[in-house]
């Protein structure tokens, strides 16, 4: 009790952050933790990106030139794991930390100490995982999907470190989600009903439930692996009565919702940026909310479409084909609503808007190839080829990643009180846009022509497209280093930003000064109708 009074006493006087480096270790402030998450994910993004460039360097020409197949497999595996768990997911959590309290009119997250813990687990998890690359026998080399028995009986010794790293990441995600749900459900300003919440808040609320539902499933899968490896159980060992296919069912029961965990918050971000720069309210807010909820529901009943070639009965194949195709409907609704929002707006094309429009276009391309992949008989030909690689990179790079970059450009004036340099931002956009398409578009063709994924060397007919792809990858990779330069320049010497940094910006966060005060809303703000939906 005395602690509460103590805290209240402090809150009476608006105070800034503590001094010194320890501030970052002890902080319970949503902005500090958001910043930590965002920089951490950016560092992971550069490390995972460097691994991608190692892969593309080896694939520049047929033949083995630079690395051995064994190391190549470690690169593909760690690239995937780091990008999924280290770059995309923490970036979204960082954005949630920064934005949700400001958007619902709260002073901070509901559970600040847990917030600190959920971030500080991550550096340990990833140090543990990356350290395996320097161990005898090498790091994880079984793909980010770590199918048993390649990841159990045949795995390098370091797999145990990988298992514990995944456990830590899962614990961090679950804590983050609990915090986000608690904040959204309990700390909204009076008058902000659920159906008046900003789309980013809505998408994160649903995402957080997905995370809580599936991260324990992943934890179960890796724990069973641990037991198979060290305690002679046979969960996934056919020779002992287990079933390697069961691993895939469990993995994808986690894995498919995981895919939407990486895209739903992106939908939220784009639903803020497009209305702002079209100077027009989001079209079909209600159906946007329902579409996100439908996608989240469907994500639980489509998992086996990753396993069409594994050998399922006809009825199973048909069920998963139909349910997968169904996802196109709510996803289409979202795309149509964004376009309807742009329609007869008064658009300008600042950097966040460019990234958002590229998101809509390129994500749709990834969605259309997704429909092709849902068609089971055709999927037999696409499965585990570069067509799949092209598909999921289209939804994850110009999808999830572009939305994160767009969000950074969009809200950085609010975070730092400084405006980025518009021409540098646009240059970054065009470099990224060209880079991403040059990298991934040709992979559709090499996949259709029959190039399997995860191979360090390939037959000669795939040579041209791989060369183009590698060139694109380097353009894309270095334009993200340029992004780092743009960010540092903004923070150091950006022009001062207005409170409402964009002409068409709506929402409670824009009613705060730029940069936003350390404790966002000390008193519940009035929720005016012009700032919210509905």
């Amino acid at each position: 009790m005395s602690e509460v009074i103590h805290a209240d006493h402090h809150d009476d006087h608006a105070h800034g952050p503590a001094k010194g480096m320890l501030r970052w270790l002890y902080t319970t402030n949503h902005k500090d933790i958001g910043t930590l998450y965002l920089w951490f994910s950016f560092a992971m993004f550069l490390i995972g990106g460097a691994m991608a460039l190692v892969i593309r360097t080896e694939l520049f020409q047929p033949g083995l030139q630079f690395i051995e197949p064994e190391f190549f497999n470690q690169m593909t595996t760690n690239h995937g794991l780091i990008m999924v768990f280290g770059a995309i997911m923490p970036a979204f959590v960082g954005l949630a930390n920064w934005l949700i309290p400001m958007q619902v009119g709260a002073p901070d997250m509901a559970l600040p100490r847990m917030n600190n813990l959920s971030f500080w687990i991550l550096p340990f998890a990833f140090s543990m995982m990356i350290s395996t690359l320097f161990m005898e026998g090498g790091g994880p080399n079984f793909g980010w999907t770590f199918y048993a028995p390649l990841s159990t009986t045949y795995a390098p010794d370091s797999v145990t470190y990988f298992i514990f790293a995944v456990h830590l990441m899962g614990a961090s995600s679950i804590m983050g989600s609990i915090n986000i749900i608690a904040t959204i459900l309990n700390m909204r300003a009076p008058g902000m009903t659920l159906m008046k919440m900003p789309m980013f808040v809505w998408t994160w609320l649903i995402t957080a439930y997905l995370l809580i539902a599936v991260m324990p499933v992943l934890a179960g899968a890796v724990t069973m692996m641990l037991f198979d490896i060290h305690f002679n159980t046979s969960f996934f060992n056919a020779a002992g009565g287990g079933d390697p296919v069961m691993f895939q069912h469990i993995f994808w029961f986690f894995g498919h919702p995981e895919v939407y965990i990486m895209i739903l918050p992106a939908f939220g971000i784009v639903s803020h940026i497009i209305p702002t720069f079209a100077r027009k309210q989001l079209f079909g807010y209600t159906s946007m909310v329902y579409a996100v909820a439908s996608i989240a529901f469907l994500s639980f009943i489509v998992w086996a479409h990753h396993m069409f070639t594994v050998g399922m009965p006809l009825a199973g194949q048909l069920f998963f084909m139909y349910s997968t195709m169904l996802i196109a409907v709510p996803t289409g609704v979202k795309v149509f609503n964004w376009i309807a929002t742009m329609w007869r707006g008064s658009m300008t094309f600042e950097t966040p808007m460019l990234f958002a429009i590229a998101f809509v276009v390129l994500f749709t391309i990834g969605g259309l190839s997704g429909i092709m992949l849902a068609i089971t008989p055709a999927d037999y030909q696409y499965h585990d080829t570069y067509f799949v690689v092209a598909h999921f990179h289209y939804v994850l790079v110009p999808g999830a990643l572009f939305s994160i970059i767009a969000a950074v450009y969009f809200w950085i004036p609010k975070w730092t009180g400084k405006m980025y340099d518009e021409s540098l931002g646009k240059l970054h956009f065009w470099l990224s846009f060209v880079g991403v398409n040059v990298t991934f578009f040709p992979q559709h063709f090499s996949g259709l022509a029959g190039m399997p994924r995860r191979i360090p060397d390939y037959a000669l007919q795939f040579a041209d497209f791989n060369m183009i792809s590698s060139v694109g990858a380097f353009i894309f990779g270095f334009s993200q280093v340029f992004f780092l330069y743009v960010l540092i320049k903004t923070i150091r010497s950006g022009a001062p930003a207005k409170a409402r940094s964009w002409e068409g910006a709506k929402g409670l966060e824009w009613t705060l000064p730029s940069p936003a005060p350390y404790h966002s809303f000390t008193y519940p703000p009035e929720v005016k109708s012009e700032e919210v939906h509905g």
Partner: protein
Amino acid sequence: MKNQILRMLTGTLAFLASGVALADELNMRVGVTDISRQVYDLHMTIFYICVAIGVVVFSVLFWSVFQHRKSKGAVAATFHDSTKLELAWTIVPTLILIVMAIPATQVLVAMYDTGGEDMNIEVRGYQWKWQYKYLDEDYNNSFSFFSNLATPKSQIVNRSAKTDTYLLEVDEHLRIPINRKVRFLVTSEDVIHAWWVPDFGIKRDAVPGMLNELWAIVEEPGIYRGQCTELCGKDHGFMPIVVEAMPEAEFDAWYATKVTSEVVRQESMSKTFTHDELMVQGEVIYGTYCSSCHMANGEGVPPVFPAIAKSPVALGPRDDHLSLVINGVSGSAMQAFGKQLDAVQLASVVHYQRHAFGNDVGDISQPQDVINLFNGQ
């Protein structure tokens, strides 16, 4: 200016797209079975529908981007809701999906018709090669062989020019007759692999402990190539699939000689070989089965792949060495070669290992020793 650039871009894209439609290398192969043609047609149908959707959606989007911009004086409208529109763009896509699902279901049902086969072949994945076993009882004698990558290491490490079938050539093709329904029973010995022949339109995972069924009726003689399509470890990229479809009579003749040589092979088990014969045979087998892990010079890649040169096993008792090769080391990458090699091969490769890379034990391993070990267990 911007419009011009965009027009140029769209022009280039259209040009590229037309090139794409022409070139065969860029698209799925039509293949040589009825199923593969149905799959190709389905693929193209879905592809064109997706392209049409893309064209419509992106046209509206870019029309809006070019027309409704503030710099052109556009004033934002205030509409933000329409139940009719929302219903329309929920129902219309659903109908399109149903149109797609009908042919997809038909092709899938056809693919699952695995009965009525003329012959059965077991396809077994190993790290990193395929084993083919002809099962039919009608032929009286079932026999099997391994199909290993035949591309020389020198091409892979860029020391010699790469041939047209780089990474897509094996030492022994899987041979099947045309115009007969061949059923493939796909399984694995170790990790999960996937067996894929694009020209037949079939792909299935090879899962240890599971038997998956596939079938094909090939209509044209020819050599058809595919690759393993499930990550299976270090040499996942180096275990191609080559199927040779032969006219029926030619296939039957080949099959008969194969059965005869199988009898001869069985007889060779009781022969006694000289040191030189064993060394010659052993070196070939070492190159095919052992060198990818233990390296051509026997030095291995410790600690994952131990050295054979001067190793305690190679210098220790002969029967221990034979047993290790026969049974493998569980929980490691060392496979149980007793299932993959016959007694002559096992004896010669072990003899070779004990007398190469500076090892010189001075004993001899004969097929009979291997058979004795098998019987002793």
